[in-house]
């Protein structure tokens, strides 16, 4: 009997030991759940929204946004000058800006950080934003050619000769550094003056400078993790420096703990120059992957802010409860609104006056976001299998767009009442930009357009055939990625097209990585898609339609449009430039329709309106953690 107990006791002892190694700690001022686990805290390699949220808390760029108006405010730079030709920018850095180890933040740190982004060795999603600086793209390609040269030369060397390989790598690296100084127009004039020259006037360059990938890193810290790889000749970057205790940051917070898919703890950075602006002393970012668990955790009060409620099928019902609450208080809401109060203040006032009744709620909030959900047309002359592509004809694309009842999609399919989209750029998201009208829902017009394009609806069978030879319209394939409500939307749209246009449609659902590859290589007829803008300029959306753009999944190529985008690149007059952008978007969403905008994206938050303050509602939905204030 004793023998039998031994394994049980051993297991028990082991368990106690493991448990003792894991202990709890003090609560934080602000507890929130980010959109997902952070992928990296290296600003130059970031590409996910949750990473940028942390970048804004840990680092500070030259400038930052006012997250209500998206006006540019000083960050590390106190002031800046822009030359008359809009090409040369000079930033004057404040001497009070410090790294969390008390080192001063200098112009050299920015040069170092931006240079990292331009090395193919550390290639990242946003590398090409740095191409805007004169010589940036040439430098990237120069270094790439160097690495290729290294590969060839090394194959001639004997395999064991590591020293020779390392020497060659070092030589090439030094050459590259010299080349950078020579050709890239980015300079630290002195410790506190940074200047760069752009290849083209870029009116949104300041907006970009506030974007996470333009944040500085602390060079001495990063350098400890950098080495040359004798096998590839590349700079090898270990990422240990992004974790405490190594990480050194210059923003409102310092990172004191990061446990993968568990939590991140931030404490106020005592050396931050603008310390009084930082509301919460400590922030805990919890990782909760399962959406239902996150909602339950919020309901039990352990979380102040749930920054992305998605993936729970009762979300539309919760939003309906929120709508009921607002409907009941519509008059009071309007009254408060007329006193110039923002959404947050109004909701807090309402919460204090009348808490939600049964089957109502005031702690879930849907905000329009800076993105659009749409369907791509493959605009190539022939389909992947070689058949002629009916969607090569813009009239057919317009017809298919006008046959969709988008309001039906958002009220009955997604049930989230997203703002329906007839334009690609969410209206009202870019100051001074007036969106074109776009196309409405008009099935009769669809059929007329199809007739013009040589497709007619037969009376007898109700199917769409080619007028010239009676051939039926090819089967329309809709490609979507599995998961979320993509399939429901595809089904609804297929049904609308079959009903209104007499075509047959088939749905092809693929797992997201495969889906992504198919879309990239234009292996589809129609595919679902999503786009979120990166910066506050129409080109963050319009660039997609340039024939040479890497995100041109539609393979759309139009000389007039390319020419127009080229003009936009060169235009110095901002007013005129905005008009050109409006015209370009009108051309896309009213004439060419390489895509069908379906609805603009919303982001759903959960927070108690009287317990969390200063959530920004501007569609770009940038929330600075240091601005948020939780009242417990």
């Amino acid at each position, binding site marked *: 009997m004793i023998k039998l107990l031994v394994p049980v006791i051993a297991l028990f002892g082991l368990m106690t030991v493991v448990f003792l190694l894991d202990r709890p700690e003090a609560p934080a001022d602000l507890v929130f759940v980010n959109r997902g686990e952070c992928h990296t805290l290296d600003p130059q390699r970031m590409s996910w929204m949750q990473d940028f949220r942390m970048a804004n808390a840990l680092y500070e760029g030259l400038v930052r946004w006012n997250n209500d108006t998206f006006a540019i405010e000083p960050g590390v730079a106190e002031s800046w000058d822009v030359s008359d030709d809009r090409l040369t920018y000079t930033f004057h850095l404040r001497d009070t800006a410090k790294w969390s180890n008390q080192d001063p933040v200098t112009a050299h740190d920015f040069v170092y950080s931006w240079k990292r982004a331009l090395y193919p060795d550390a290639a990242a999603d946003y590398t090409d934003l740095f191409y805007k600086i004169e010589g940036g793209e040439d430098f990237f390609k120069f270094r790439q050619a160097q690495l290729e040269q290294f590969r060839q030369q090394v194959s001639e060397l004997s395999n064991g000769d590591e020293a020779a390989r390392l020497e060659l790598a070092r030589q090439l690296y030094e050459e590259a550094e010299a080349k950078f100084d020579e050709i890239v127009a980015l300079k630290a004039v002195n410790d506190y003056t940074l200047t760069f020259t752009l290849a083209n006037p870029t009116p949104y360059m300041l907006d970009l400078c506030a974007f996470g990938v333009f944040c500085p890193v602390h060079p001495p810290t990063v350098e400890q993790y950098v080495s040359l790889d004798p096998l590839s000749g590349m700079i090898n970057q270990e990422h240990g420096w992004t974790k405490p205790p190594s990480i050194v940051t210059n923003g409102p917070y310092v990172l004191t703990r990061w446990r993968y898919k568990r939590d991140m703890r931030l404490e106020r950075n005592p050396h931050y120059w603008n310390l009084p602006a930082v509301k919460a002393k400590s922030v805990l970012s919890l990782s909760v992957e399962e959406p239902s668990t996150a909602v339950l*955790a919020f309901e039990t009060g352990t979380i102040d802010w749930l920054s992305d409620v998605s993936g729970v099928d009762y979300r539309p019902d919760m939003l309906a409860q929120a709508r009921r609450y607002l409907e009941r208080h519509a008059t009071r809401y309007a009254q408060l609104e007329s006193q110039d109060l923002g959404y947050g203040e109004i909701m807090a006032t309402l919460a204090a006056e009348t808490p939600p009744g049964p089957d109502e709620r005031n702690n879930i909030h849907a905000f329009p976001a800076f993105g659009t959900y749409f369907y791509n047309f493959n605009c190539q002359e022939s389909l992947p299998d070689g058949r002629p592509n009916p969607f090569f004809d813009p009239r057919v694309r317009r017809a298919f767009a006008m046959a969709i009842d988008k309001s039906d999609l958002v009220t009955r399919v997604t049930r989230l009442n997203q703002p329906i989209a007839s334009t690609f750029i969410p209206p009202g998201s870019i100051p001074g930009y007036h969106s074109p009208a776009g196309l409405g829902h008009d099935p009769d017009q669809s059929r007329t357009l199809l007739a013009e394009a040589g497709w007619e609806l037969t009376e007898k069978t109700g199917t769409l055939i080619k007028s010239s030879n009676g051939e039926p319209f090819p089967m329309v394939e809709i490609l979507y990625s599995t998961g979320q409500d993509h399939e429901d939307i595809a089904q609804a749209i297929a049904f609308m097209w079959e009903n209104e246009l007499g075509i047959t449609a088939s749905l092809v659902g693929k797992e997201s990585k495969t889906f992504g590859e198919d879309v990239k290589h234009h292996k589809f007829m129609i595919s679902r898609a999503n786009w979120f803008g990166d910066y506050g300029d129409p080109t963050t959306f319009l660039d997609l339609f340039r024939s040479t753009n*890497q995100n041109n999944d539609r393979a759309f190529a139009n000389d007039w449009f390319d020419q127009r985008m080229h003009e936009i690149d060169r235009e110095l007059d901002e007013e005129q430039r905005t008009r050109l952008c409006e015209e370009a978007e009108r051309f896309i969403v009213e004439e060419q329709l390489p895509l069908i905008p379906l609805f603009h994206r919303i982001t759903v938050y959960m927070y108690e309106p009287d317990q969390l303050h200063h959530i920004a509602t501007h569609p770009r939905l940038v929330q600075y953690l240091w601005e948020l204030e939780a009242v417990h």
Partner: protein
Amino acid sequence: MAGMIVRRLIQFPIILLCIYTITFVLAWLLPGNPLEHEGRRPAPEVEQAMLAQYNLDSPGRFYVSYLKNATGVSYLQGDSDRIFNFGPSLQYKDWTVNELIAGTLPVSILLGLASIILALIIGIAAGVVGAAKPGSLADLATLLVALVGISLPTFVIGTALLIVFAVKLSWFRVGSWGSLGDLVLPAITLSLPYAAYIARLCRMGMIDVLGEDYIRTARAKGVPEVRVHLHHALKVAFLPVLSYLGPATAAVMTGSFVVEKVFNVPGIGQHFVESVRNKDLFLIMGVVLTYSSMLVMFNLAVDVLYRWVDPRIESEG
């Protein structure tokens, strides 16, 4: 016995190499580009550079370099500062696979141990009670519990427990991990299917054994009934449970994706699913190698234990 252990240890690297090769082929054949994600796409030359960073542009180079790093060859050659280097995670760039496994495996081991202990206690108790009077009400009750444990999916049991005990009664926290209380609900959820299985194994074993001659002898000698069951019968009836314990412990310790999700437990189970979904080659290989090593080791441990508990079993068996 020593011979058996030596033989098994020699087989160990061969088994792992086979598993590595098969997993590598399958993982490489997974459709899709591991660096692809929804949203903005890097410039083509940048994408090429990204693939080159990770050897993802050549399967041969990847296979060899990963094998060298993961098995300690690179360490011996002085190219790596870790003995077993599973490389970086493609999806979570700031983490190495070693760090990801080191951070999550202890959590899973802890939860797994708690669950397996719980499963043993519940399972053996239910098995013994059930076998004492087969067909009785108590037996039927344990049968019912076992049936529920085996057939109800863990996400249903988990969510139900969460809503009742954490949300309604507020006995436990939701979605937290860090105190003893956070362990209770996930451990119960994870243990139920195993407990059910152990209960059935134990009950069957007991019923078989209770019909043996030596039990009749013991009873005839006047040994108290409780002692007959617990001392004489259980010792033998426990053997099938013991052999089940090896794979069960390995499985339970390498985490359960569903239980981890429902209770937000930061364990290793998530990597098995997420790494494949993200086509994170380094992580796929890393977790598979870790899991297979654990499985082989636990089976060996159980075999050793088996022979120690029941010396009748020959080492050659």
